[in-house]
């Protein structure tokens, strides 16, 4: 009786009812972690700053998923779905970054840290004749001024 089992188990898992206190605790923890990540973010840690921020974000995300979204009570397919989607996100990003990191250097976007070529456009600076691609508007402004 597979049908009954899967849905029945699910129903059974979801029957538990916790007090509101649990949500308050999670909420407070989330706020504290937000402040922590703002604090560490403002220190501008050189290499592992982003990594640390992402770790904190992952912890926060896990808390939201587990308790606000009740994943801690779910079993089976629901968890699997969530887990698999996260795995796929990681692999999508991982394989893509792997490409940029190991590519023939000149094939990376010019001006990036993995390329030896000069960037075509590196931001707006009319004094040096660079307009951030905003030529049209600057020209128009010019004309109206004259």
């Amino acid at each position, binding site marked *: 009786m597979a049908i009954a089992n899967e*849905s029945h188990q699910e129903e059974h898992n979801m029957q538990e009812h916790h007090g509101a206190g649990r*949500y308050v605790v999670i909420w407070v923890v989330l706020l504290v972690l937000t402040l922590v990540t703002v604090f560490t973010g403002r220190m501008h840690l050189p290499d592992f700053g982003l990594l640390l921020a992402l770790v904190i974000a992952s912890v926060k995300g896990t808390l939201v998923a587990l308790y606000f979204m009740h994943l801690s009570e779910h079993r089976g397919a629901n968890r699997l779905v969530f887990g698999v*989607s996260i795995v796929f996100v990681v692999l*999508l*990003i991982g394989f893509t970054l792997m490409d940029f990191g190991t590519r023939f250097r000149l094939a*990376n976007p010019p001006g990036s840290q993995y390329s030896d070529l000069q960037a075509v456009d590196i*931001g707006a*600076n009319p004094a040096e004749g660079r307009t951030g691609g905003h030529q049209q508007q*600057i020209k128009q402004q010019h004309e109206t001024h004259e």
Partner: protein
Amino acid sequence: MSSAHVTPGTVPGPKLAAHFASLEVQKHAARLGMWLFLATEILLFAGLFACYASYRFLFPEAWAASSRSLDLTMGTINTVVLITSSFTAAMAVHYAKEGKNKMVGHMFVLTLLMAIGFLVIKFFEYKHKFHIGTLPGRYYFYEGIQLPGAPLYFTVYFASTALHALHVVIGMTVLAFSTVRAYRVGDFNANNYTAVELGSMYWHLVDLVWIFLFPMLYLV
């Protein structure tokens, strides 16, 4: 769904659609469907995260400089607002299970108010950017950052925050329906809270995405 097989007279519960074997199955199906839908949302943002990751990997300096040009205070306030709104949404589910429909409505109203607050703050951030010229791609005319990749950062910034804001609006619509139902009909109870639960799950996803967007955009 035709509702030919509703069993009247028992505990007020959701209608059992004819094709389901039992209410258990129906709820399970709804929840699993929602999780699958959330998975698609995660992968939708994954595309943007991949763009973000690639360009961050290529242009770390521009990324750091550009992220510092954002208003961290506003970003932090928005994060707090969204987390709190997520908390109230979770509380709504809690009250729905206990059958306190009034409280469900109140909680969702709070959530909606915070959502509006979030969008308003976002609007002012956008306005500032349009003013100083930190805009995507070829519209970029900010002279403060002279690094390759800076216009790209703002492409990613605008694409991801706009997509997120769209989700906030969709989430608000979904929650608004549940709010009205909680006040008007008031039929949520321990047996029948799927609508509240699914709406609030969607809202948590919106929060979840922001939890990642916030450090990625403001704190690199």
